[in-house]
């Protein structure tokens, strides 16, 4: 069915036809016609953020906690440039977003008009795809294509730049047409390669599943299939930061997170395995450590929907290009049809080796009666929120790694963190996006005080929309992760890694119209956390923690998995390592 309407109306109509219920945005001159259309309807809810970066991270939180694409609407020029960090974040973490930007009218493009920026030029490297629409007749098709591209294949952010005259002009609107796009990434994996993988799995003596964000992106069905496969084969499973929750933390084959701050048992299993099955992860440098020492004796299989991920960093033996859910389904089918074989005797031995590694208790820390250890704060947060319908976002730093280590995720889509880009300032707006999508859930942003200040203006958004997000700040008055690197790699020269002139977070909360809680004594911690949970509204929780705690285990840059540092005693000599040049 087609209809004549203005470009601005088409935008709202297309969003409705794509099933969008929420838009995160900020108005300005170049998008006023679209804001006018938003004003005239009630189907789509617009959340007014306080900064365009916040809009994009909020949309990311919305997307990751629902599996649906997040939608953003911002103005031209500064509106678009403020969105760039969020776009890059979403690109690196494969988060589907549709970002709409206003642009100066077509007849003024190229004249350095007021609030003109080359938005498609600036965002070309930080989007999966982008479009400048110069003709209202092409707008409806482009809008629908944008949703398709954002969600098909490896998901990612897309952007449509819409000049103001295109918004005012009238054109023909048409509804989404299935399969209208030439962009159709294949989802089924090659059956011969899958059979090869099953055969390897049947005879492996020390196999491990190494899972990543691709399992989450493939949808809840993929996590279900992963659980079935892991539990039926008894093969241990580890995950990247991005994949936490795909396999439950309480599951008996769970090794915990791997990588730079991953668990000893997970990294050792990766190093010593004879078969590594990478499912939807990308051999990121936070995971592999020193490449020439990465899992030296294993056969490696890699399942990824993006062919460019395969053999990019690590040469693999069994590449399988396809969607994780589809491939897992075929693996299970073929494995069952071949008689459900595994070398259970060897795997039992492997498991007991893993138990030995587990007994190292790599997350152990020195408890303290007088000060709150950040690990302790997270242990208490975990214990007191476990039964809740809980979603966690984080900022970036030590607190983020401790959150990944000490909080347990039982389900996918419950954990939102900036993995690939490591964007400080992600967590607060992301928590808002999650809360918008799940109004009755307990949404907690585990933050560091420095990161939290980067997008703290979004507290205004939380208060305005009555979003009861809990900002759980592990306040060490330090750029803790930077401080840790300076201690270990730069001779304890703490150059600008202090958080000075911090605000009084309780007063700050009150100034925003939220609740502030400050706690510094471990004895008061439980009550304070309960107060935070029970308060019906947004809370800033200022948890004053030990200032010089380091995050362990740690694989220093340039080191191998089996060269992990387990605690303070092992940090001597790290300074001399050539790894200092790496990030």
């Amino acid at each position, binding site marked *: 069915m087609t209809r004549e309407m203005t470009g601005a109306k088409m935008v709202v109509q297309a969003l409705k036809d794509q099933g969008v219920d929420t838009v995160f945005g900020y108005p300005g001159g170049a998008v006023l016609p679209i804001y006018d259309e938003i004003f005239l309807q009630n189907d789509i809810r617009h959340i007014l953020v306080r900064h365009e970066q916040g809009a994009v991270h909020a949309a990311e939180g919305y997307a990751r906690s629902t599996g649906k694409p997040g939608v953003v609407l911002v103005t031209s020029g500064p509106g678009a440039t403020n969105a760039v960090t969020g776009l890059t974040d979403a690109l690196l973490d494969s988060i589907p977003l549709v970002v709409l930007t206003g642009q100066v009218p077509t007849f003024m493009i190229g004249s350095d008009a007021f609030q003109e920026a080359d938005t*498609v*030029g600036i965002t*070309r*490297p930080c989007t*999966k*795809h982008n479009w*400048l629409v110069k003709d209202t007749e092409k707008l409806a098709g482009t809008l629908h294509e944008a949703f398709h*591209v954002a969600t098909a294949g*490896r998901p990612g952010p897309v952007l449509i730049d819409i000049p103001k005259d295109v918004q005012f002009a009238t054109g023909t609107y048409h509804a989404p047409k299935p399969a209208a796009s*030439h*962009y159709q990434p*294949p989802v089924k*994996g*090659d059956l*011969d*390669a899958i*059979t*090869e993988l099953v*055969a*390897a799995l049947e*005879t*492996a*003596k020390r196999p491990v599943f190494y899972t990543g964000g691709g399992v989450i992106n493939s949808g809840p069905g993929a996590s279900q299939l992963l659980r079935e496969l892991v539990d039926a084969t008894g093969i241990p499973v580890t995950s990247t930061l991005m994949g936490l929750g795909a396999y439950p933390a309480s599951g008996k084959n769970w090794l915990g997170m791997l990588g730079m701050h991953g668990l000893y048992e997970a990294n050792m299993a990766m190093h010593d395995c*004879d*078969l590594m099955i990478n499912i939807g992860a990308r051999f990121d440098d936070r995971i592999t450590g020193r490449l020439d020492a990465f899992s030296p*004796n*294993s*056969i490696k299989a890699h399942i990824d929907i*993006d*062919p*460019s991920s*395969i*053999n*990019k960093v690590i*040469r*693999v*033996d*069994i*590449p*399988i*290009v*396809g969607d994780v859910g589809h491939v897992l389904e075929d693996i299970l089918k073929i494995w069952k049809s071949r008689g459900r074989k595994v070398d259970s005797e060897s795997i039992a031995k492997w498991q007991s080796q893993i138990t030995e590694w587990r007994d190292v208790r790599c997350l152990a820390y020195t408890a303290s009666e007088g000060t709150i250890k950040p690990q302790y704060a997270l242990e208490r947060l975990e214990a007191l929120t476990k039964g809740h319908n809980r979603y966690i976002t984080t900022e970036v730093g030590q607190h983020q790694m401790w959150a990944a280590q000490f909080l347990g995720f039982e389900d996918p889509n419950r954990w939102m963190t900036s993995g690939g880009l490591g964007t400080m300032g992600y967590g607060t707006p992301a928590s808002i996006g999650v809360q918008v999508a799940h109004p009755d859930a307990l949404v907690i942003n585990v933050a560091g005080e420095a990161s939290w200040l980067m997008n703290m203006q979004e507290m205004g958004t939380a208060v305005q929309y009555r979003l009861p997000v809990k900002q759980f700040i592990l306040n060490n008055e330090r750029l803790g992760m930077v401080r840790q690197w300076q201690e270990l790699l730069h001779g304890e020269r703490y150059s600008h890694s202090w958080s000075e002139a911090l605000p009084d977070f309780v007063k700050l909360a009150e100034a925003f119209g939220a609740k502030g809680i400050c706690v510094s004594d471990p004895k008061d911690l439980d009550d304070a956390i309960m107060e935070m949970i029970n308060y019906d509204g947004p809370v800033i929780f200022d948890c004053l923690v030990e200032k010089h705690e380091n995050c362990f285990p740690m694989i220093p840059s340039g080191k191998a998995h089996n060269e992990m540092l387990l605690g303070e005693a092992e940090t001597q000599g790290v300074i001399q390592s050539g790894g200092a040049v790496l990030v």
Partner: protein
Amino acid sequence: MSALHIKKGSTSHSAYNLRPNFSDVQERHTITILVENEPGVLARVIGLFSGRGYNIDSLTVAEVDHTGHLSRITIVTTGTPQVIEQIKAQLGRIVSVHEVTDLTVAGPFVERELAIVKVVGEGDKRVEAMRLAEIFRAKVVDTTLNSFIFELTGAPDKIDAFAEMMRPLGLTKIARTGVAALLRGN
């Protein structure tokens, strides 16, 4: 060490014919890319090469299918086998890209480039330039009393050789189109 029966590096059954060889040898490949003819598409391809640090030795682009809005980009690049595989996979991810063909792998293929070469000189040098041009089957497309512009088509190394010979004879300027290439046969 490994009790598994698969040969390390075997990718024969893969849906994608990935060459698993992580060698340091620099290879020269000619890759053609069929793209949607839309604004910015060339910037996407070039941005990929600069952003990821790949080489472009030569690049040509023109619309080849007006009704289908398709252009063909031909890129000559050098890199290790792994880098070449990455280049192709990364090109394949670009949404406006319809088809990526590595002619060097798919070959044999025909490769042609056009060059126009200005040679300034008098007397014997002028005569010698003319004689060499005939050997190379270069055409004279412009002449004055003391200069020629030659037009020459051929594989890039033929043009290199021609330019080399013309240099002592007064070559002052050269313009090259970059390589256009197609697979032979059908």
